[in-house]
């Protein structure tokens, strides 16, 4: 394992300290927790926005804290969802009297811990609503199983729900718009290599020198298929087609595109993928309202990428384009 760390069991603590030290005027840590909040949180009179989950997906989620996006992010151990008491601290830190909205990625652990925190918060008189993001089309969408995973699309839920909250919307309005995003967003990823959880010390899985995995999750969960590495154009085509088979995007629609790097993939390669994604959309008569290329939801040092498409209407467009002061998502 080659990593620039101190104690592998303390990486999350060290990271949170280093994060807040980088943006001391923007962020603060809730004392004795791994909860990071806007310096001015709780913002009175505004719905509070809280997200979080296991660490190892940086800049998710603490990088998305700031005016126009999240109020708080709760950091769990690497790839392990945070506990309800920590999430409760996040909810309290975000509560400005208008209720708190939770953005949860659809993993059993995240859902359980955040839901329990919501119950605890409600017991303390804080109104809580939530949305569960499940944008990963690599997984069958069945109500009998765990269902689809939440991946990079989650960041656009933060963005749009955050803009709505910043506009002074009510908890119910924030929920409505967040659910609209979830209904219209789809993602799919692929990987060339595995990341290594620091405390585990060895890669989570193995891919052969000439192999890639299509549909992989951000913790290395299995995807759709392992096969020989294809060209960037073929990879982009497969990801986009699987997304569009799942969600119809009619001609003349407007979409947002996110090309997300999983950690070790150079930006050069993300732009090469973007080139093909844009040309496919153009060929299908779909308009691109805005494109995001970079690392938004990583998986430690996994090499690979994901593509996200979000179908937009006028409301979503204006919220997506609204200002954000989050360090990892400046608009």
């Amino acid at each position, binding site marked *: 394992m080659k990593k620039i760390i101190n104690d592998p069991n303390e990486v999350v603590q060290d990271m949170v300290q280093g994060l807040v030290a980088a943006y001391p005027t923007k962020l603060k840590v809730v004392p004795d927790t791994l909860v990071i909040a806007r310096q001015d949180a709780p913002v009175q009179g505004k719905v509070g926005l809280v997200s979080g989950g296991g660490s190892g997906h940086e800049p998710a989620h603490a990088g998305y804290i700031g005016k126009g996006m999240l109020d708080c992010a709760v950091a769990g151990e690497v790839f392990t969802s*945070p506990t309800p008491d920590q999430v409760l601290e996040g909810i309290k830190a975000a509560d400005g009297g208008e209720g708190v909205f939770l953005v949860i990625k659809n993993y059993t*652990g995240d859902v359980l811990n955040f839901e329990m925190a919501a119950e605890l918060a409600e017991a303390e008189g804080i109104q809580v609503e939530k949305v569960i993001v499940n944008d990963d089309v690599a997984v069958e969408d069945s109500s009998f199983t765990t269902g689809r995973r939440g991946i990079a699309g989650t960041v656009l839920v933060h963005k749009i729900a955050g803009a709505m909250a910043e506009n002074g919307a009510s908890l119910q309005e924030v929920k409505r718009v967040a659910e609209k995003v979830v209904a219209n967003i789809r993602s799919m990823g692929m990987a060339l290599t595995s990341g290594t959880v620091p405390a585990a010390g060895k890669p989570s899985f193995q891919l052969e020198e000439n192999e890639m995995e299509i549909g992989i999750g951000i*913790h290395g969960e299995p995807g759709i298929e392992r096969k020989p590495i294809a060209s960037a154009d073929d990879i982009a085509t497969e990801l986009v087609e699987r997304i569009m088979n799942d969600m119809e995007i009619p001609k003349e629609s407007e979409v947002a595109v996110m090309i997300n790097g999983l950690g070790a993939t150079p930006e050069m390669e993300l732009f090469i993928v973007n080139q093909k994604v844009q040309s496919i959309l153009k060929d299908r008569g779909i308009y691109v309202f805005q494109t995001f290329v970079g690392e938004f939801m990583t998986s430690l040092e996994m090499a690979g990428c994901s593509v996200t498409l979000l179908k937009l209407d006028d409301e979503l467009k204006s919220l997506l384009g609204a200002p954000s002061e989050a360090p990892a998502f400046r608009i």
Partner: protein
Amino acid sequence: MRLDVNKTIQWMQLTNEKMQANKDYLTTLDQPIGDGDHGINMARGFQEVASKLNESTYTNVSDVLKDVAMTLMSKVGGASGPLFGTAFLKLSTKLKGEESVKQDIFGTALTEAVNGLKQRGKAEEGEKTMVDMWAPIAQLFLEDSNVTADTLLSTADSALTKIKEMTATKGRAAYFKDKTVGHQDPGAASTYLIFEALAEVWKGDSER
């Protein structure tokens, strides 16, 4: 068997020893069909349980189990933390007021725990989760009026054998689908350790 404060503490301390001893084993189970953190999570959680019980004094079983529940809830994380937390919280609630827990009331409390687990995790029996270990044990205590350490262990053993052959449809293992058949469920394996510890505490009791 009758569970009093001391026995309950012994039970939890022995469980902690088993979690530490099986940390790597549980993590290894969680690698092919999970994310390889279950042993780390359980060892961290029960380590904290042991410290908590050491530094406090208790007058009833319910309070012990409440501290176990709250500690697991706030130290384990992941899917298993809230689930074990819920199970122990239900035990604690149901056993409130009992100074020395008898078998029948323990069976009712375990059944409550299973219901709590199912509600929390939305898993039914047969989905290859810890539910498939808790449920048959609760049933044993409800239905058999004379449970022994040995019948407890043999129930747990046969549950483990069945779970291994199931297909996971809940939790992280569900993404691995058919590939889960033939692999043991880590949460069921750690639940097994909890009841194995109970049986051993119980045996030590009857041997005395």
